[in-house]
């Protein structure tokens, strides 16, 4: 089985999405599936990409699209990829799996992004095989997931389940979706907010962090 992993983050190799897909690629390989990665450029696909991408899609048995959440949905670069593929013809019908992730723990932050992925599938007559949302991915900072230890334990467990579903050629199971929806740490929102705010205290003191440069009319 050949899986095309589309990295929908405009941040390239430094992206947390790249770390997530690198781990997923290793999990897929362990399950006997081959994969290759296509990364959207910061402004979305240009003419060169659209020459290359159809061949990658034609060779794929399944596609995984992973993207961070930028203001509630896919980054502009991924939006442009959808629009370009839809306009130029997306090639043969393929099964698509979606992965949305953000720093926020709550699954609700990922819903619009996953819905946009599903609607893209419907528009180009691809087959939507389900999507998962991971929270608390900000601390990854482009590092291999295993380096972060317990902070990514649940993320890795979720990706392991995603890879198993993909390698078996089945849609993401309810169990997989539920596993991926767990917060990275078993904490309610209030202590997470408190801990996160505590981290930036020193830096905020050193600069005018609460400045409002556009507050007054010129």
């Amino acid at each position, binding site marked *: 089985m050949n899986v095309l992993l589309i990295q929908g983050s405009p941040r390239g190799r430094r992206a947390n999405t790249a770390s997530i897909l690198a781990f997923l690629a290793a999990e897929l390989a362990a399950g006997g599936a081959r994969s290759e990665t296509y990364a959207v450029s910061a402004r979305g696909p240009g003419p060169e990409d659209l020459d290359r991408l159809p061949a990658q899609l034609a060779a794929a048995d399944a596609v995984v699209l992973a993207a961070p959440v930028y*203001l509630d949905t896919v980054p502009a670069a991924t939006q442009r990829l959808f629009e370009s593929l839809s306009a130029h013809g997306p090639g043969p019908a393929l099964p698509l799996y979606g992965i949305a992730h953000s720093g926020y723990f709550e699954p609700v932050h990922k819903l619009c992004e996953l819905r946009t992925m599903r609607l893209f599938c419907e528009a180009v007559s691809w087959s939507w095989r389900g999507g998962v949302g991971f929270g608390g991915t900000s601390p990854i900072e482009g590092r291999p997931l295993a380096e972060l230890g317990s902070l990514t334990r649940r993320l890795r467990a979720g990706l392991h389940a995603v890879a198993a579903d993909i390698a078996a050629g089945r849609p993401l199971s309810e169990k997989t979706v539920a596993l991926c929806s767990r917060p990275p740490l078993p904490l309610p929102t209030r202590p997470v907010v408190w801990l996160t705010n505590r981290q930036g205290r020193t830096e905020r003191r050193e600069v005018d962090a609460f400045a409002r440069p556009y507050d007054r009319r010129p």
Partner: protein
Amino acid sequence: MDALILSALSSAADRGSEALRAIQTTLGTRGHDVETIDVVAADVGPCRGCGNCGLHTPGRCTQNDDMQTILPRVVRTDLLVLASPVRFGSHCYPMKLVIERFMPLNGPVFVIRDGEMHHRPRYPRRPALLGVGLLDTGGPAGDGDAYRALIDRHAVNLASAAHASIVISPDKRASVAVELLVRALETVEPAVAERTSLRDRR
């Protein structure tokens, strides 16, 4: 009452121009001072997710492009209108490019809002939000509902003073679209008027 229209409707040919004229005229007749920015023509790069606007240049983006003039207008307006063709339940690419550069409007700390973790807004008074989505012929059936849900999420994320959204399908006559627009404006205008009055008192 100031209203800022960020419009990507120029990418939707005649239907887009008609819809934009209807929005401008309706807002004008209801007493709004209207400014329109065509985001399709704007020189705006993608958000790099660098985080500089949080702590290194607080409230400012380090990219030197048209967002340097768009962001102050977004901060100072009373009503922000996002008008765009709907693509897969979302904004079209040029609009998405612009609105994801709203990061400098976020403060450097987090709060719980509507039971969810969010950035605390950098500015205490935020504009009301109106989403106007132009549906295509032959788009997925759920496009309109998804777009409305997205505007609802934007309103929580941006801590908008009030919000509403409408979707204009290809079969809707212009008069029906205006009726929808008026109804949506009636929802947000009390908050817009309150914001205007607070601003004038300062």
